[in-house]
């Protein structure tokens, strides 16, 4: 089993270098003529106005938080799914109750207006 993870480790090494090498090669092949006008930030052809690191709407944060809750729930469900064949009906129903509680949580969030993209 550790040889499987050794492969993944080696793959990670190769994959970290593999896109980087063509980018470096293209850096040598491509022309390099920097120009103050060219390196200005793009804003539909006009001069930029204001800060570039703007404040963001709270709605993005709320969607990320909702994703976090459901993702952690699903991570907890994976062991239950794998042990499924050894569970009794009671075990299955406990897992179903867990999912149902989160289903109710999604409906509650819906009613509160959390899932609106204003």
């Amino acid at each position, binding site marked *: 089993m550790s040889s499987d993870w*050794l492969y*993944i480790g080696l793959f990670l090494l190769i994959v970290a270098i*593999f896109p980087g090498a063509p*980018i470096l090669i293209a850096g040598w092949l491509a022309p390099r003529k920097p120009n103050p006008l060219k390196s200005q930030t793009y804003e539909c052809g006009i001069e*930029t106005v204001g800060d570039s690191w703007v404040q963001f709407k709270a709605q993005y944060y709320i969607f990320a938080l909702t994703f976090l809750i459901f993702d952690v729930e699903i991570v907890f469900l*994976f062991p239950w799914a794998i042990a*499924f064949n050894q569970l009794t009906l009671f075990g299955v129903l406990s897992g179903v109750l867990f999912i149902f509680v989160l289903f109710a949580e999604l409906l509650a969030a819906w009613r509160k207006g959390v899932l609106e993209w204003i």
Partner: protein
Amino acid sequence: MSWNGFLAFVKDPLTEFAKGITYRLDVWGLSPELVNVIVKLLGAFVACMLSFALVILTIWVERKLYARVQDRLGPNRVGPWGIFQTVPDMIKIFTKEYITPDGADKVTYNLAPILAVSAVMLIWAVVPFAPTFFGSDINVGALYIVAVGAIGTLGIILAGWSSNNKYALLGAFRAVAQMVSYEVPMVLALLVPVLLSGTMGINSLVKAQSVWFILLAPLAAFIFFISSQAEVGRAPFDLLEAESEIVTGFQVEYSGLKFGMFFVGEFLHAFTISALFSALFLGGWRGPWAEQVPILGLAYFVIKTSIVYFFVILLRIAAPRMRIDQMLNFNWKFLVPLGLLLVMVTAVVEKLVIHYYTLWGLEFGSTNYLILRAVTHLVVNGLICVGALWLSQSFGKREPPRFDASRAVAVPPQSSESTATD
């Protein structure tokens, strides 16, 4: 070379190559661990090269199909039927200048395209192409795929943040909101095959599919297909790049091969998702005589993946782009409740079928048992599908929210006489 050796090579070239290289390295006197590492490194390198070469083919297929549906020819000058069109395109991208914007964060700006491509290529380590052609059959394959796919999301945020461009940043936020939202139904739909087979390793999932999982869990397949399209950012969930509208969003400040990497990463991701779908739901390399002759397993896998990729391209051609609020509503108000309900119902039905098959005198694993299991799951999935459609239709028939009438709005005079003279 003996006839048996030749036959073994034809049946299973990769294993024979690996054995040959191992033997040659052993003869040169290297230690077994080093030989192991070198062979695996070579295999990883070959997998990466293969994926890049595959992108050239998939881009050509997509452009030709797109063109034919739109009643035009597509690339047909470079090579027979234009197969080599992507090669001059890549040469062009290689020779474009890297224009880095002022004030961009150098480290993250250069890291972002590398992360976007690495996230996709890491998935190729666990996809089983044939009974013996796979990188590694780790026993947490499904979870590994979900974890590694999240690195792509990280690449997008880095790209938008480090571009020093408020529109790139806003585009990156929207892209991440979409990708992160659609991970939930994708992982839920991934949970259903894991439930039905009791293992997370992808090769073990393929081996457990004596009946293809698309017959046992068609709704899960549908949810996985749709949410994986949204994960990749392909139309109709195209808002991540939206070439004609927000000037490719978070990639606006990238030029040359860095942009090329995002482009290649997107196509490769679409192909990888098709490969995953066919491995999880369409039985992967399974087919007649696939275990004895592994190269046939590879052929079946390639055929199935191509068919799924064909549908992915057709979906892109045929559907218009969705707005971000429509997309997120569809996800959180339809796909996630449906996914949760599906997992609950599949678990209960599967357990009941296993508990009560003995009552009807069936043996575990016999064909009658398999037929009962498949038919029960199909019927239950059909009922859920009908129920979900009926519910969403009744929701859609509600009155849309109207503006508040007491707000001050200019009201035309109530008199019926005509005010338009002359």
